[in-house]
């Protein structure tokens, strides 16, 4: 089952997960290095373990909706990642799964997916914008997605807008002082570094767009 360009259906969701696994593997060393600077140097390793497992699971698991695929990803990440990214991304995918029950996602559904994921990350991590976390990438991504939808973009256009905003949001974490997570122990020394979770958020959204264009 291969994805059809521009159609965000179950095949797209499966392709997204495969693309994410490849992209995370490529970014493994980068993510680990970012995490070495301000954390415990396990983010790349943990994300790679989680997404390799998720990719293996979704290949032939039965799924009727995009949400079925995302739920499987959520459960797999929860039980395999091993770091804070497990419950954070796990909850994000789980909440996203609940709002993606249509067989094919339109612009509204993509916005709903991103907003639900953001809500999941915030509910689990209790972080707000400006605290140097993945919330700094998810928040502008969800907002830009809604704006693009309002401006008449199609589903792929909404994803594009979300990715661009996530990239800018991730870049905005560099000068920030971390007050959440392991990086908060570093205090002022956390400034001047890109947040690894914000970076991995960009990697995942880029994979979603890549899958939609495949």
């Amino acid at each position, binding site marked *: 089952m291969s994805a059809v360009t521009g159609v965000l259906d179950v095949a797209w969701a499966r392709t997204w997960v495969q693309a994410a696994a490849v992209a995370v593997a490529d970014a493994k060393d980068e993510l680990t290095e970012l995490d070495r600077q301000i954390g*415990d140097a*396990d983010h790349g390793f*943990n994300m790679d373990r989680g997404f390799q497992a998720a990719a293996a699971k979704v290949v032939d698991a039965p799924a009727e909706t995009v949400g079925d695929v995302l739920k499987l990803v959520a459960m797999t990440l*929860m*039980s395999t*990642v*091993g*770091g*804070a*990214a*497990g*419950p*954070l991304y*796990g*909850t994000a995918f789980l909440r996203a799964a609940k709002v993606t029950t249509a067989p094919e996602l339109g612009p509204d559904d993509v916005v709903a997916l991103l907003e639900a994921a953001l809500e999941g990350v915030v509910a*689990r*991590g209790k972080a707000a914008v400006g605290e140097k976390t993945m919330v700094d990438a998810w928040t502008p991504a969800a907002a830009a997605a809604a704006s693009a939808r309002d401006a008449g973009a199609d589903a792929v256009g909404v994803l594009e807008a979300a990715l661009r905003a996530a990239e800018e949001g991730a870049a905005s974490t560099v000068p920030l002082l971390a007050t959440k*997570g*392991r990086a908060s122990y570093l205090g002022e020394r956390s400034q001047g570094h890109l947040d690894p979770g914000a970076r991995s958020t960009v990697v995942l959204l880029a994979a979603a767009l890549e899958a939609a264009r495949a």
Partner: protein
Amino acid sequence: MTAARTRLVLVSHSDALARGVADLAGQMAPDVDIVPVGGLADGALGTDFERIEAAVVGAPGEVCVLADLGSAVLTTQAVLEMVDDDIAARTHLAPGPFVEGAVAAAVAAQGGAGAEALVGVVREAAAAVATAAGAAAVEASPAAAVPSGAAPGDVVARTVVVVNPQGLHARPAAEVAQLASGLPAAVTIAGVDATSVLALMTLGSTAGTELEVVARGPGAAESVEAVVGLVASGFGEV
């Protein structure tokens, strides 16, 4: 409260840390089911969703979970979001210091405290740790020492001298806390809550120290007698 004691689940990034704290807490709570869940299945550092889930779901009754850092807390919260509602309802995550919280919770669980009460015990442990560290900004909870239901007129005070050479170290403090938690009146020793093993330990009372024991509320006299009697007995160390 004679049903199964509350299970303690200790979630850490490190297997060695979880097991070590379980040993330490278990020393003072021989009948409490303490389940260490440390590291990942392959021994690496991290937190293991499935083993936390198994420890929570497999418990015969109430569960109190303590977690060390970031992902241990987040993963436990994710587990509680995913399990059935009845299991989530009987399980409480207690935020607080991992070592001191586990010791205090174990002693309280040994005395029959439920999971929700253990969350309060761990919170008090956090205050005791902060006080010991000199963080004067953290206020000890006066509510713990004087329950609102206590009759104001019913106050009995007595002084007792610590006689055992080692003073109120961990084991005697645990014995006092256990005794005090079963007494009808609210008891303080030298101004601290007698049911809090950590508060008692932070008194640093050595042999020869005079301690004022105060009980408030119904059964104040017998409560004071019981605590004074235990301290004066020397805890089997004289």
